[in-house]
């Protein structure tokens, strides 16, 4: 854990953070002589107004605990969690209930009431808040429209698809007009196509309602598609933090790289992915991932390196993507795997201000 933490994102300073974690620790108590378990340590994190911040981590990394601190479902052992200027950690149970009404939350398994229709599920938080029936109707129907489920208002959850259930979940989370939306693995139970639709909906409500979104996920693809900022959590600590673009282009921490490798190796052609080894063998080729960011996206980098070093470079896979609205290219190439050639290639690439990473050897 000696990798330097990235400094707080520059825009965090300009806009007042809507969610602020201030040196938060969370330890689960020692019962009957068992050693206490530290779920989170030294978490300081700011989510600026209107941002979508994604927290990514493996299961058990502490991300579920982290998101539950925001609405007080979990209490920190020390430190403060401030939401919209209110110190959540200082509130008693009754005041906390009031604060929770301005914090919406959506869940991996949707958590819809099976015996309520889509309409009645969306109405539930309003009933709880004591909103009169007439006003509930005026609030719920536009929300069902917003999430594209106006025609399903009288359907029960069992009659809806996973994506439709999550749309109901989103409408329900928005019913009390919160300023903050918490998303707890909201797309993890959905197929890739439905995931895209739900993420698009999250972007839409973020933009239209000026909602600040904190989401947790274990999938880098979710971060790539929806978050403008990312924090990587590992072993209860935030090990990397920055804009999504920055972190994708220049990952610093090994955990971040592993997540990014998942994203890349998942798309490597099987004939490469299946044969990939971590150690070189005589005569094997190195598989190198080169990341092209904005300024260099159009440079003829490969031919330049190839000519300069008289090395054959074989393109295995290439894709140009867009992250947070900026072009972002990834090329996976193979080059001769001997140490001298490999280091010449990587340093030539580094001189062009591009980052590269050796994925393995074939």
């Amino acid at each position, binding site marked *: 854990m000696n990798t330097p933490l990235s400094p707080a994102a520059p825009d965090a300073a300009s806009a007042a953070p809507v969610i602020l974690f201030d040196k938060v620790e969370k330890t689960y108590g020692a019962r009957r002589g068992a050693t206490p378990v530290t779920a989170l340590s030294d978490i300081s994190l700011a989510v600026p107004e209107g941002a979508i911040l994604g927290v990514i981590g493996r299961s058990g990394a502490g991300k579920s605990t982290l998101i539950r601190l925001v*609405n007080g*479902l979990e209490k920190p052992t020390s430190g403060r969690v401030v939401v919209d200027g209110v110190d959540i950690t200082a509130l008693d149970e009754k005041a*906390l*209930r*009031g*604060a*929770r*009404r301005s*914090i919406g*939350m959506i*869940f991996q*398994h949707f*958590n819809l*009431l*099976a*015996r*309520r229709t889509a309409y009645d599920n969306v109405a*539930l*938080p309003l*009933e*709880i*808040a004591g909103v009169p029936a007439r006003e509930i109707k005026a609030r719920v129907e536009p929300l069902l429209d917003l999430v594209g489920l106006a025609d399903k208002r009288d359907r*029960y*959850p*069992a*009659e809806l698809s996973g994506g439709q259930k999550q749309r109901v979940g989103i409408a329900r989370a928005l019913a*009390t007009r919160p300023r903050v939306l*918490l998303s707890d693995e909201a797309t993890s139970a959905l197929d890739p196509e439905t995931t895209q639709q739900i993420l698009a909906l999250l972007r839409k409500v973020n933009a239209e309602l000026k909602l600040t979104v904190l989401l947790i996920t274990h999938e880098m693809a979710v971060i790539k598609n929806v978050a403008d900022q990312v924090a990587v959590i590992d072993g209860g600590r935030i090990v990397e933090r920055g804009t999504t673009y920055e972190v994708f282009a220049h990952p610093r921490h090994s955990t971040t790289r592993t997540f990014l490798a998942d994203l890349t190796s998942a798309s490597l052609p099987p004939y490469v992915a299946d044969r990939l080894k971590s150690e070189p063998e005589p005569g094997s080729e190195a598989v190198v991932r080169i990341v092209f960011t904005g300024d260099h996206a159009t440079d003829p980098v490969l031919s330049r390196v190839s000519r300069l070093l008289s090395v054959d470079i074989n393109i295995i896979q290439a894709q140009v993507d867009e992250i947070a609205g900026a072009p972002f290219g990834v090329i996976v190439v193979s080059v001769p795997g001997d140490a001298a050639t490999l280091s010449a290639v990587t340093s030539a690439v580094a001189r062009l201000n591009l980052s590269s990473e050796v994925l393995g050897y074939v």
Partner: protein
Amino acid sequence: MFDLSFSLLPPAIVDLLIEATKQTLYMVAASGLIGTLIGLPLGVFLATSRSGELFAAPWLNSVLGLVVNAARSTPFIILVVAIIPFTRLIAGTSIGTNAAIVPLTVAAAPFIARLIEGSIREVDQGLVEAARAMGASPLQIVRKVLLPEAMPSITLALTLAVVSLLGYSAMVGAVGGGGLGDLGIRFGYQRFMPDVMAAVVIVLILLVQGVQSLGDGIARRLDKRHRG
């Protein structure tokens, strides 16, 4: 159907059978109702009061759990006799149909409480968390989430309780409670009238079938977890 089978019995016995059926229905309905009024809140509390739960009171939970277990492990016929002073206190007498309602209720309430506890515990904890995240109070969570979501299961639990009470009610003949069981013992067994015994058994079977079908039907209508 009734005319066909009962015409085999003397009219006086048919009258007794009808009277006994009414007594059984009265005892079961009254003890079922009062037992539910006591058992439902008790069951909800048992399901929500362990440590870390909505109404966390682990100590009270343990004590109530012990009381419920004690009541449930006492054989019913012994319970009937053992609580006679209590029965007299409540009903003014220890003999008769009204008096029989007391031990039936005392047996039904803890049984219903345990069944309701089970029904409530079946409700997905994710729903409780979602309701807490909405800012619901513990009472709102019970009223808006736990009870409505558990309702199909609670209906089946109460059906089971009523069916059990039909069985228990046969035993309160021992304290002059009347009802079908009493008729079966006094006429069918002690006076060697197997046709009366058969009629009692048939009426009990019909009652149990009727109650079970009704309960299943209501539970099915309440349950929205199936598609379309």
